[in-house]
Structures are given as structure tokens and as C-alpha cells.
């Protein structure tokens, strides 16, 4: 084993194209028993490919076309949806059954959902990119619509009434002319073994017909979560299981020179597993295993550090390949010539950690040649394939089950802990749980990459944008597209991709809630703001003047109206900031009010109004909760979160130095959902977070006249910027 084992596996290299075919419908049917089962394929695979591209991922030519969603109507009348998506707090455990109940005309409480089990659920690429509602939702609704058609046909036969005369409601089909003639879904499903495979897209319900969708319903997991009954991966217990603690190097890139495990082995009940550099200590009690690991004496070769959190930006720019043009139009040279004012700025953003409250956990059990792994993962099928490959197993002999996930934010897309548990379970011959300590979590995290954006732009005498030359390094182009009207523009991206070019990042990097877009929106909206200031314009009016997209105009106006915005030149000393963004198909505009303590360099965000247009809304309460969540989490990367490091050594190891938002940081948050029922449902888990860096930076400028070009806006950076005013 080389030390590369400690690095996150590049998920895309592992499964794109997938090495293994997904289980077939026949296999699923055998597992499911009787009832009515309906399979559907996502109607438009090109759309799914676009979604991957929009999410900053490479398109996957090998997405399965066989089926993506299916549901079963059991002989007891209960309906079960099966999905490879997982529940990590974002709410599909509630919103997907809402969709199903509505289209199938059954009460919501008769719908069950099975999530993230690779033996029972159709193949899925992973839960990220705010794609569950946008892309899985329509497939599930289609399956439900088709299932209803099957039930109506069966009822027509059974009741001897033409299907056109029948109506379905609350799991019962009745004759509209003689309501006493009725039959339940349960009766119809009895003794059936019907399989439908749908390729033609049926008509889904119109918003006006929604009965369950579009309403706020109680979270289905709420009771379990407030009573402690909800099971997360580390809460799963198996007889004879051992807890593992794994030896970690002091820095990424370090190699193990020598190791002495004799003192650890001497602890009663301890089992030591060694496979090259991979050293683990196992015991029936996790704290005893941890104590024994401390007795392992290890000597590592640590390469001298070449870069740290101060020098990283120069390092990254030095390593950056030539930017690729993502989008361009007009003539930049002509635009420059036609400018009365030109602006040039460089924006910096730092590495940030995912810091889910649940650290990575997995429990692996090898039984009769079959490996079952419970894992906290956003990507159960990826985990299955990685485990199969690493252990030389047939993927059909690997089952990954996903209990509740205690937060993901992109950080649980890699599955190192699941691989570790599987290797150890095989080595130990007993079930093994791996749950990372907080220190391991910070060490093994795939941080959001540090990034740089350089923007040259200009305005004419009338305050209209003349040109926009935008280069983003290492964040990727999600959210980089210019949506303001500017005749001459170029947007280019360099060093994109989760891990960047080889040798660029000194440790693992990856997706973090709305990858790249946080950086791109911070840079774009800061630059727009500084141009508005130069044009002596109000920042809301300046934006409206340069906007032509009606969706963005609507959300910005909604935010301004709700906030009670009155026009003023900046800095107005009011501490008001505005920012707009587009992510996962949704449009967001936020306005913040801040107070800056100049002596301490601290910022208190007092109020945030966030308006979002996300097409049809399935669960309004869930949507607003996600917006609030984005505002709060976004305060972290705006004001405090930043990984400190020296070479491959991560200096932040716990929450003493790495600070995430606390209760006292939280402003008064007002969310506004802008109705757009003519637009299909768009993403909701990520969009509102993208505006948080810029909206706070712009408000700090409005309060103080100090322009912050680097995130996070720590007290030291704010004090330095104030000095420069």
C-alpha cells in the first residue's frame, strides 16, 4: 500500500464509465415479491447529462437507460418508492413521497420510501447538485402516473366499467356514475405480479391539480430525530462487531518509515491489522481501540512543506494551465475602448471544510462471501463499486445500505471510510465499524478548493457595462456565466475539476455545497458593486439597469421590495448590501444589513432577506428551510471558515480553531419564494448559499467604504481593509 491510500479516491476515475452493470429489473422483481411494480426511465437523458455538466461534473455517457425509478403497490395497499438518493437533512424523505402520493392518488401516510440501498434501489449517480427534485422527481412522478393507469385498467376489468368512467382518490377507484361500485388499490394488487416498463412520457399533474405537492407537510423523519430513534451509520450494531481506529500520517504526502505496534497489541482484546502503510487497531470498545492506537509508535517521512495558506494563491496561479474560454461574445478590445471607467480586481477564496456534525462512518460485515456495508455516504452506488474494486469482489456481492446521514454538503461523495471498514472486516473476520474522529475528519476532508478570480470590466459615461473579461482559477465555471447584459465579454476557467491539476492542491479537494458558485458569485457581485459605486448609482438600480433576464429581475425586485430598499449611493453608511446569483436552475437575490465593529474588525449580520425563484415548489416549508440553511452556512465561509495548513499538514484539527456559525451569528432571516408555476421544479438545497459572500462583502463596503476582496472576511482582513480606506 502506498500513502496514496490515504488520499480520497477520485470517484470519477473509478466509475466513469461504470465498470459494472446495475442489477437488472428481473433481479429486483425477485427481491420484491408480489404486487404491481412500475419502472420508468428518465425521459430525456440529454437533460440529465446537462445536469451533470451544470453541477460541474463530467457528463456520463454511460448513464443507465434501463430504468431510473420504480415503485411498488403492495398487496396490503401500501406504496413503496425506491430511490438511490439519500436523506442527509435536505428533505427528500418527505418531498419524494409527497410527489408519489399526489400523482398516484393515495394518502401520504400510505407511502413508504426506501433510500440508498444498492440491493433494493435503482442505480443512482449520487445525491448532490440539487438534482433530486429536478431530475429524480419527474421520473418518480412518471412512475406514479403510470401505476395509476395500470390500476384504472385493472379496476375497469374488475368492476366491468369503462376506465373512462372511473376516478381514483385516496387509494380507491370508483365509478363516477355509481360511487358504490368501488375497489381499493390493495384489492387490485392482490395476487398480481405485474411489471410495467414505461418509456413514453405520460402527462404529469398540473400545479392547479396538486393535492399533496405544493403544501408544507411535517418532516417524515421528525419524530425519530427528536426521540433519538433515528439510526445513523454509527448507531448500527451487529453481534461481535469491533471498532477500528486507523493510524494517520501527520501530513498528506508523508510515508511510513517504521511502526511498532507491540504496546497496542498488548492491550487485552486488541487486534492489530497491518497492510503496508495501513495500520489499524481493533477492539470491542471504541475508546479502548482509541487508547491502544495512541500506543502505536510510528515514524513518518514528512516531505518539507512548499506552500502554506498564505502562499497558496501564488502557488496555484503558478501551476494554472491556460484558461479555457467557457463563453464569449462581442469584441473585448472595442469594449475597452468604449469605456470611460475601467476596473481591475482579483478575488481570493480559501479552502473550507464540510464539517458535517456526523463524521464519516461505516460498518462492514462479510458474510458468506457477501459484503454488506452501512455507510454515511452521498453516493451509495459509488461506494459499492469502489469497495468491489478495492477488494476484488463482484459488485453484486457488495451491498451498501445508507442509514440517515448526519450532513453531507458534498463531503460524503467519497467513500474512504467505507473502503477502510470493508478491508478491516475482511482482515478481522468480524464486523468492523470505522467512525472517524473529528481530527481524522479534518485531515481526510476533501476541502472546497482555494480559488482566484480576476476580472477586468468597464462602464461608459451612462453607467452601462461595456466589457467583462473574467478568469476563474480552480473553482470551475459553475455560476461563472455572466447574466448581466454586457455587449463584449469573455468568461474563462482554469484548473477546474474536483482535484485540480496534479500537484496544485496539497491535499484532497472536492465539491462543497454549490461547488465553485460561491467563489464565482462573490467575485462577480463584488465587481458589479464596485462599478455601481464608481457610477454613483444605487446598487439595486445599477443591477436592474443591466439585467434583461425576467426571472432575475423578478427575484431582485422581490428582495428589494420585501427589504424596503430605498435607493442610495454607496457607501451609504447604512450597511446594506445586495447580491444576485443563479444555481441549480434557481434564481436568488439577497439583501443584507450588517454592523461593523471597526475596532475589533468584526461583522454582525443583522438581517438577510433572501428571495428565490425555483420553479414549481413541491414542499414550500422544506424549500424555505433550505434557504435559511444556506444563509446560515454561508455566513461561515463569508466571515470565518478557512483551513490553515503547512504543506500537507492540516493545522485546523477541531472546532477550537475552525469556527462554524454559532447561534449568535444568525441574523433575522426572511425568505421570499417567488412563484413560477410555469417552470418545472428547480434545485433548492444549494442556490441561496452562493450569494452569501458577496452580499456580506457589499454590505461591509456600504457600512465602511472598505472593499474586501478575500474570503473569509476575518477581523484581521477587515481591519486591514479599513486602514486602506
Amino acid at each position, binding site marked *: 500500500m502506498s500513502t496514496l491510500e490515504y488520499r480520497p479516491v477520485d470517484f470519477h476515475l473509478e466509475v466513469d464509465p461504470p465498470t459494472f452493470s446495475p442489477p437488472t429489473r428481473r433481479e429486483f422483481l425477485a427481491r420484491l415479491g408480489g404486487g404491481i411494480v412500475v419502472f420508468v426511465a428518465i425521459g430525456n437523458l440529454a437533460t440529465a447529462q446537462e445536469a451533470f455538466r451544470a453541477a460541474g461534473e463530467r457528463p456520463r455517457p454511460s448513464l443507465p437507460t434501463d430504468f431510473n425509478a420504480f415503485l411498488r403497490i403492495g398487496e396490503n395497499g401500501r406504496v413503496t418508492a425506491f430511490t438511490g438518493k439519500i436523506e442527509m437533512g435536505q428533505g427528500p424523505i418527505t418531498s419524494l413521497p409527497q410527489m408519489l402520493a399526489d400523482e398516484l392518488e393515495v394518502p401520504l401516510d400510505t407511502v413508504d420510501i426506501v433510500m440508498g440501498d444498492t440491493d433494493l434501489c435503482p442505480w443512482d449517480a449520487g445525491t448532490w447538485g440539487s438534482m433530486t427534485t429536478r431530475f429524480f422527481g419527474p421520473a418518480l412522478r412518471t412512475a406514479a402516473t403510470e401505476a395509476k393507469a395500470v390500476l384504472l385498467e385493472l379496476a375497469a376489468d374488475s368492476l366491468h366499467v369503462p376506465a373512462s368512467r372511473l376516478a381514483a382518490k385516496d387509494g380507491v377507484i370508483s365509478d363516477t356514475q355509481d360511487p358504490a361500485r368501488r375497489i381499493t388499490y390493495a384489492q387490485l394488487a392482490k395476487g398480481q405480479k405485474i411489471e410495467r416498463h414505461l418509456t413514453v412520457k405520460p402527462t404529469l399533474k398540473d400545479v392547479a391539480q396538486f393535492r399533496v405537492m405544493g403544501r408544507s407537510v411535517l418532516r417524515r423523519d421528525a419524530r425519530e430525530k427528536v426521540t433519538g430513534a433515528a439510526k445513523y451509520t454509527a448507531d448500527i450494531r451487529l453481534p461481535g462487531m469491533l471498532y477500528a481506529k486507523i493510524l494517520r500520517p501527520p501530513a498528506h504526502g508523508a510515508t511510513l518509515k517504521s511502526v511498532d505496534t507491540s504496546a497496542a497489541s498488548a492491550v487485552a482484546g486488541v487486534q492489530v491489522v497491518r497492510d503496508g502503510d495501513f495500520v489499524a487497531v481493533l477492539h470491542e470498545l471504541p475508546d479502548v481501540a482509541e487508547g491502544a492506537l495512541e500506543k502505536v509508535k510510528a515514524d513518518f517521512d514528512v516531505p518539507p512543506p512548499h506552500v502554506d495558506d498564505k502562499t497558496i494563491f501564488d502557488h496555484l496561479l503558478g501551476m494554472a494551465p491556460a484558461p479555457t474560454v467557457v463563453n464569449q461574445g462581442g469584441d473585448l478590445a472595442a469594449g475597452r475602448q468604449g469605456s470611460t471607467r475601467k476596473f481591475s480586481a482579483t478575488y481570493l477564496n480559501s479552502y473550507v471544510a464540510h464539517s*458535517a456534525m456526523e*463524521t464519516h462512518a461505516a460498518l462492514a460485515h462479510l458474510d458468506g462471501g457477501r459484503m454488506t456495508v452501512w455507510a454515511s455516504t452521498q453516493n451509495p452506488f459509488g461506494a459499492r463499486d469502489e469497495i468491489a474494486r478495492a477488494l476484488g469482489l463482484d459488485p453484486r456481492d457488495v451491498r451498501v445500505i445508507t442509514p440517515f446521514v448526519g450532513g453531507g*454538503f458534498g463531503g460524503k461523495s467519497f467513500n474512504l471510510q467505507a473502503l477502510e471498514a470493508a478491508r478491516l472486516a475482511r482482515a478481522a473476520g468480524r464486523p468492523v465499524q470505522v467512525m472517524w474522529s473529528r481530527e481524522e475528519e479534518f485531515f481526510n476532508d476533501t476541502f472546497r478548493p482555494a480559488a482566484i478570480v480576476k476580472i477586468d470590466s468597464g462602464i461608459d459615461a451612462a453607467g452601462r457595462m461595456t466589457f467583462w473579461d473574467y478568469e476563474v482559477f480552480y473553482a470551475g465555471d459553475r455560476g461563472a456565466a455572466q447574466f448581466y447584459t454586457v455587449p463584449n465579454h469573455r468568461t474563462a476557467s482554469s484548473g477546474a475539476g474536483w482535484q485540480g491539476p496534479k500537484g496544485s492542491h496539497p491535499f484532497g479537494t472536492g465539491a462543497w455545497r454549490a461547488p465553485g458558485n460561491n467563489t464565482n458569485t462573490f467575485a462577480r457581485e463584488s465587481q458589479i458593486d464596485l462599478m455601481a459605486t464608481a457610477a454613483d448609482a444605487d446598487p439595486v438600480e445599477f443591477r436592474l439597469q443591466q439585467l434583461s433576464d425576467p426571472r432575475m429581475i423578478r427575484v431582485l425586485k422581490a428582495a428589494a421590495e420585501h427589504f424596503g430598499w430605498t435607493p442610495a449611493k454607496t457607501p451609504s453608511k447604512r450597511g446594506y448590501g445586495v447580491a444576485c446569483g443563479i444555481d441549480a436552475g434557481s434564481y436568488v437575490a439577497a439583501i443584507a444589513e450588517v454592523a461593523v465593529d471597526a475596532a475589533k474588525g468584526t461583522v454582525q449580520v443583522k438581517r438577510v432577506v433572501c428571495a428565490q425563484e425555483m420553479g414549481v415548489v413541491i414542499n414550500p416549508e422544506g424549500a424555505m428551510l433550505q434557504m435559511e440553511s444556506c444563509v446560515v452556512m454561508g455566513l461561515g465561509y463569508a466571515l470565518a471558515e478557512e483551513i490553515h495548513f503547512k504543506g500537507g499538514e492540516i493545522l485546523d484539527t477541531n472546532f477550537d480553531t475552525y469556527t462554524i456559525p454559532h447561534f449568535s451569528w444568525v441574523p433575522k432571516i426572511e425568505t421570499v419564494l417567488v412563484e413560477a408555476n410555469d417552470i418545472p421544479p428547480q434545485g433548492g438545497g444549494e442556490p441561496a448559499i452562493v450569494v452569501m459572500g458577496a452580499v456580506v462583502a457589499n454590505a461591509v463596503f456600504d457600512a465602511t467604504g472598505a472593499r474586501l476582496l478575500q474570503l473569509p472576511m476575518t477581523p484581521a482582513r477587515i481591519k486591514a481593509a479599513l486602514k486602506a480606506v
Partner: protein
Amino acid sequence: MPDTISFRLNDRPVDLKVDGDRPLLWVLRTELALTGPKFGCGSGFCGCCTVLIDEQPTRSCLMPVSAVAGKTVVTIEGLAQDGQLHPLQKAFMAHDAMQCGFCTPGMILRAWGLLHTNPQPTEAEIVHGMEENFCRCGAHPRIVAAVQTAAAEMRGGR
């Protein structure tokens, strides 16, 4: 090394033969087969492992099990009485005051301690009292609202 340690856990007597230096969190999660107290950081920063010891919210990851001898320990599993959810549990549900739910047991028990000493807290007192319990999902505004609702219900008398 093993000592016999006796305490009350969720209204039941417990007599354990256990090394008294072991962290209470891991004793609860292994010997006592509970899962409500969560491991979050192992250093007392985050509050996911919060339990009540003699009605005081306490971080169980840093507390040796010997320290609870003769005391009363309540975990989230012990908060509901006779199948009736505590007002805090009901209020957390009603306000959607959770997302991933991993911090929820610790949040509810921290809030229980807050309301025990201050039945009528202001919003600022709730924020101050909950400050050192972390939630990464950003459910904070709803948690504050849930604590207010529960406080009102508890003052109204159950």
C-alpha cells in the same frame, strides 16, 4: 480495574462493572446500547453528546463514567414520558427545527437545561444559552423558535 458504578439512567437503576475512567459517551453507546448521545468532536466543542446529569446539560464525551456514580442521567431516549413527547420534542417537530438531525438530541437536552433554570427566557437568552451547541445544517432560527414555543407550553402547565 473495573469498578461497580451505580446511577439512574432514564428512570431506571443501572449497576455497571466498568473501568471508571471510560468516557460516559462510550459507556452509554456500548454497554448501555443507547444511540441518542452522538459523537461529534470528542473534545467538548460541539455538544452533540450532551446528556443531563442531575438536570445539568453535560458533554458526555469528556465525562468519565465514574463521575455519574449516584447521580441521575437522562439521554434523549428518556425525555418522553409514558409515550408522551416532551414539549421541546413536539416544538422541534412543529417548527421543523432540524435537518440532518445529528445535533438534535444534544440541542433538545441543552434547551431542557436552559428552560429548567430560566422558564421564561428572552430570545437573546436562548441564543446565549444555546451558543455552544453546533448545528451545521443551519436550523438555528427554527431551534430558537422551537425553544420559545416549548417554554410557553411548559409555563402554561402540562
